[in-house]
């Protein structure tokens, strides 16, 4: 029971700051301390009138969408390749995909900045997407790897033996088996991109993403408006996580029921 107490205390430490952020986003006055002087939605009203913020949000959504798309295509292809590779080939993919996770964002951001400068590529939304894929792709591959370890290649062989064409095998056997993990990992790639700050700050040039907007606001003042934005960002992450989880579940169920069909 001592263990239980310790665990819940640690969880409280993790969650409490987030709850306090949400609480003060509804504060009627501009102060961020107790005593709490009443609820109000004024900070949310201020957000919705802010066109700069709306621009940053749109930019972040577009970048996150394209990051997820590129990551999904590259990652799906690599996962299918992974199933067919021998140990050496797998080791190459692993080394390339795990190393960026073990490096601080600073290193990745700075080296990409140097590459773009050396190649004469102007910093823009495109360079941000390119950089975000470098961070998101490894996460997708690590997630896929755990799932593919359970994948049985003999299922594909069985389909081929029973006369299915390569395309049929892919559509009816391989894809349903890997799709849930692929889609939920792509959603995570979206979330990673949407929140990315350190790498972005090096490769963004004059572009402003939502995290960069929040950063500039945080540096200037401490106002409940930042809390209100933070609350919406938190809600959005919860929604994304929930979406990833639900899709993972639903698709897995449909994959299982499809397999059970005669």
């Amino acid at each position, binding site marked *: 029971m001592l263990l239980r107490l310790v665990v819940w205390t640690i969880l409280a430490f993790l969650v409490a700051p987030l709850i306090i952020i949400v609480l003060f986003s509804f504060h009627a006055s501009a102060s961020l301390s*107790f005593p709490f002087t009443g609820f109000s939605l004024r900070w949310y009203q201020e957000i919705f009138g802010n066109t700069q913020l709306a621009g940053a949000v749109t930019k972040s959504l577009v970048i996150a969408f394209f990051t997820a798309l590129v990551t999904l295509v590259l990652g799906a292809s690599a996962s299918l390749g992974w199933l067919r590779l021998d140990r050496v*080939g797998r080791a190459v993919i692993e080394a390339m995909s795990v190393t960026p996770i073990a*490096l601080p964002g600073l290193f990745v951001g700075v080296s990409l900045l140097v590459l773009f400068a050396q190649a004469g590529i102007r910093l823009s939304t495109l360079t941000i997407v390119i950089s975000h894929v470098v961070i998101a792709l490894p996460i997708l591959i690590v997630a896929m790897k755990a799932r593919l370890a359970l994948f049985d290649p003999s299922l594909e062989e069985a389909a081929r033996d029973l006369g299915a064409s390569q395309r049929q095998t892919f559509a009816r056997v391989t894809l349903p088996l890997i799709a849930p993990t692929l889609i939920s990992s792509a959603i995570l790639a979206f979330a990673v991109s949407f929140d990315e700050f350190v790498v972005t700050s090096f490769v963004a040039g004059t572009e402003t993403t939502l995290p960069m907007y929040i950063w500039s606001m945080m540096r200037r003042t401490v106002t409940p408006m930042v809390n209100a934005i933070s609350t919406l960002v938190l809600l959005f992450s919860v929604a994304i996580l929930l979406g990833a989880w639900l899709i993972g579940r639903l698709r897995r169920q449909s994959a299982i029921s499809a397999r059970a069909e005669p």
Partner: protein
Amino acid sequence: MSLSKPVTGSLLSAPTVLYMAVFFIVPSLILFAYSFWSAASYQVVPDFVLKNYLGSLTSPLFWKVTFNAISIGLWTATITLILAIPVAYYLVYVARSQTILYLILLTWFSSYLVRIYAWRTLLGTNGVLNTVLLQLGIIDHPVGAFLFSSFAVTITLVHIYLPFCILLVVASLSEIKRDLIDAARDLGTSSIGAFCKVIAPNAANGLIGAFMLTFILVAGDYVTPQMLGGSSGQTTGLLIADQFRKTGNWPLGAAQAFLMFLVSLAIYFALLTAGRMSGLVVHRPRKKKEA
């Protein structure tokens, strides 16, 4: 006609490998080359000089901020691992519901900047911590030292990296069978004894991995120290970032980035050696999975 399995496999993996080669390996190599170039009047000149390395190694400022980054990194990684172990243990061996796991995932995916901002408002002179302590009568005037101190930096970094570290520890504990612990308990060991004698040696490599990964990410995190550390927040990461933004000596920044990388490697090997010598880390041959 169909292609052989390894060929199809290579073709399918090629785009990803190519992408990572162009946008991860090549940039790292260019950065390495940069570290030997020289900067003159805002221009980077291809060259082969060691002055970026020698200059950094002989600069007291560089050592001061590197020492600061390492000490923040070691403290944070130690505290994070100590907190992660009971939670991971609970998740792997005790918990029946997934609630805790989802709470951890939620905090892991909650925005990085939002969490820095949260601690900034919690620890400020008019912040929640001060007001609560004042009302409880524990202090009579607001403590200004909560914010802009190593304390603020460490607590925030622990908060940011703990969920990630928990997931790493969960992964390494998952490989240890429950039966081993039950056997130790049956033979009369206390639960803490079972942890020290059964889990720790078996999970040592995973635990050291979790510690190191947390250390590297924390030591390279310059945003949190910049935001919450005040004058104590100068770290190598910030020094490097500033080279690429304000003053613009890119080659010097590149050299410092690689020095930081070498320092991290050195700490990793020191830790591994210490683990081996104390007998905690046992080098075991990997089991062959090939049939």
